[in-house]
């Protein structure tokens, strides 16, 4: 019995293998890694066209934002093969380029006739190039994004509230255009009872662990005149990072946090500010453009109830940059498939559909289309914002630089330690030390 069983078993196994093997080899499959958020769902939808055209199955690995950087950078560092394609954060470009984690796309772009001049210049600079501003491309701009604001239009248009605001401030109630107005409006709404509920001024980013408070605080710092360097490329930060304007900017952010955020929003990032707004606690909130299509359609606070505004200016006009480019992970087993996806994604028609589905295409054909501005209530603001964006360091050491910023900002704004000047002086000290270690100073 036993002796008979064995060859039989062997035969069936061989049969199983011979049928399994070709299907394995043919299983044309790509895994795309990104953050888990609204636009990712839109990309799933969009990618169905790619599968229909090429037969390549798309798999997605979406990581929640608070873990996104940790987990994906860990994956890249450990040489994992999880992702073939990666929509990685703009700050990762430097490190990923220098360590060879991303494939350099110049030759491929030339061969396929993909021209970077077809994409918005600010986006190409931010999402694709390393060293910054040079024609060395490590990604295709995939998703334009910036930090912006939205407010309860229905509350802003109540006559009794408008009258009260006029009496209190002497001007008409409208979406703020400067940080002073923003603070004034937030203070006005804070603690007010609207529709029988106590409401608060504004929900803002205060998250400690990843990048939240830095992305929020810079939204105030940039307009007040914060700069990373006195001379670009020289890493001379003293007097730029801790300039008079920067100090005022950080103080303004803390003032907004102290006066007007809902209780419990001490560690809040994207999800929490959305929650605060959707649950009717906040009159205004900051968040990335990426969430705006979803907000505009929200059952409770969308439609006529919501308005959007670009980050208010102060000394200058500026917005904190978000957004990502799509890169091919050098470690992929399916290089051809991954490049084919990029080629497909760069087509103007696909880019147009991307915008329709809720992704932020930055292809000029999309942005320059005369109908673009009116296609969504926030489309015009998006164009304004993308022309005034500033980004955090994109250096290979960005993670360490970001950590110092997270600590200094959170210590000052949330944990109430020291002054704004001390926080920014400390930041100059930390950053100088980091760049010395890097051999750049």
């Amino acid at each position, binding site marked *: 019995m036993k002796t008979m069983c064995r060859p039989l078993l062997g035969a069936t196994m061989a049969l199983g293998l011979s049928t399994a093997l070709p299907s394995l080899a043919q299983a044309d499959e790509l895994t795309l890694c990104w953050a888990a958020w609204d636009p990712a769902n839109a990309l799933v939808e969009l990618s169905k066209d790619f599968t229909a055209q090429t037969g390549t199955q798309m798999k997605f690995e979406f990581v929640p934002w608070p873990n996104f950087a940790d987990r994906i950078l860990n994956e890249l560092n450990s040489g994992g093969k999880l992702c073939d394609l990666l929509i990685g954060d703009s700050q990762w470009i430097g490190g990923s380029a220098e360590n060879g984690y991303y494939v350099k796309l110049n030759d491929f772009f030339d061969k396929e006739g993909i021209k970077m001049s077809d994409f918005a210049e600010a986006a190409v600079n931010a999402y694709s190039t390393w060293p910054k501003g040079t024609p060395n491309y490590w990604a295709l701009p995939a998703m334009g994004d910036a930090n912006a604001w939205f407010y309860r239009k229905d509350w802003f248009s109540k006559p009794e509230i408008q009258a009260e605001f006029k009496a209190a401030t002497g001007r008409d109630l409208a979406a703020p255009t400067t940080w002073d107005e923003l603070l004034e409006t937030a203070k006005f709404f804070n603690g007010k009872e609207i529709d029988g509920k106590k409401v608060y001024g504004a929900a803002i980013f205060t998250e400690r662990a990843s990048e939240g408070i830095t992305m929020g605080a810079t939204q105030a710092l940039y307009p007040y005149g914060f700069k990373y360097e006195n001379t670009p490329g020289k890493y001379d930060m003293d007097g730029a990072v801790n300039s008079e304007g920067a100090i005022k900017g950080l103080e303004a952010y803390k003032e907004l946090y102290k006066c007007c955020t809902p209780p419990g929003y001490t560690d809040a990032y994207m999800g929490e500010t959305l929650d605060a707004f959707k*649950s009717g606690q906040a009159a205004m909130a900051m968040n990335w453009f990426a969430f705006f299509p979803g907000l505009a359609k929200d059952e409770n606070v969308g439609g006529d109830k919501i308005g959007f505004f670009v980050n208010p200016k102060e000394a200058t006009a500026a917005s904190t940059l978000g957004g990502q480019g799509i890169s091919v992970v050098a470690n992929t087993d399916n290089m051809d498939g991954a490049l084919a996806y990029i080629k497909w994604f760069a087509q103007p028609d696909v880019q147009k559909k991307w915008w329709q589905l809720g992704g932020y295409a930055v292809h000029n054909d999309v942005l320059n289309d005369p109908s673009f501005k009116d296609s969504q209530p926030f489309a015009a603001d998006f164009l304004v914002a993308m022309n005034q964006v500033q980004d955090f360091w994109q250096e290979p050491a960005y993670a360490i630089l970001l950590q110092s910023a997270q600590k200094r900002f959170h210590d000052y704004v949330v944990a109430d330690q020291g002054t704004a000047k001390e926080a920014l002086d400390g930041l100059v000290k930390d950053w100088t030390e980091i760049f010395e270690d890097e051999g750049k100073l």
Partner: protein
Amino acid sequence: MSNATSAHSVVEPSATTKRIAGIIVVVYAIVTMVPLAWIFMTSFKSPPDSISYPPKLVFTPTLEGYCNLFTTRTRQTAEYIESLGPPQSTCDEITRSRNMVIAGPSNYWPRFTNSMVIAFGSTFLAVFLGTLAAYGFSRFRVPLADDLLFFILSTRMMPPIAVAIPIYLMYRELGLSDTALGMILLYTAVNVSLAVWLLKGFMDEIPREYEEAAMIDGYTRLQAFRKVVLPQATTGIAATAIFCLIFAWNEYAFAVLLTSGSAQTAPPFIPTIIGEGGMDWPAVAAGTTIFLVPILVFTILLRKQLLRGITFGAVRK
């Protein structure tokens, strides 16, 4: 009443003392159960109910949390949803009532399976190796035995993050990053120290005469170990296994640093469950509940061995 004390031993507490002690302990036990009861309740709430203010004690139970835990969903227009035909399941129905459709299964089940494989695999290995080593240390003269035992135990004192740095580099070189095998080896190494230490105590308690008698009857040393010592050590082995299992099942630090995808276990996964926008607390609660069930069952079934293991460990030191 006071007459009754004469029947008792002098150290037997009075009935009043007992009653008061009982009441305090029961109150404490109930208070410590409140968070767990809340997790269980939240898992059956709808997302709006879960974040209502003040917290709701009475609510209409729904399976939405469990549905959201096991599926991924995308928002769709009402027209599209209407065009789909009748819902396939309860979950389908619940999802559609939120203007969404089920896009596919979530990662919860694969992560839970990883937890099972890694926790049980490493427990088995640790107990197996630990039993052998404990027998070796208990019955034979091993050179430097005390030093070796102390060395084995001291490996448990290191902070996991400190251990994880070189392990991370080593696994990267060996291709063990994010593999179940890598995690099983690591958990086995961490657990085997405890296993040896606990089991040596249990082995020491088994009289040598048993084996010696068996060996006189013609058993070899190995047969005596298998047929005489092992059955005697069952309680000890069971107690050790529970401890190893609890550690491996609950471990977070190594898992979050060394696994990022295919071998990720449930503990690093559960905190990353999010809904549209903010946290989906009912889904988190559902994931937590399901994750806690196996260990609760074990605790209740094997509580005697567990108590023995803990107190025994203490006595031994």
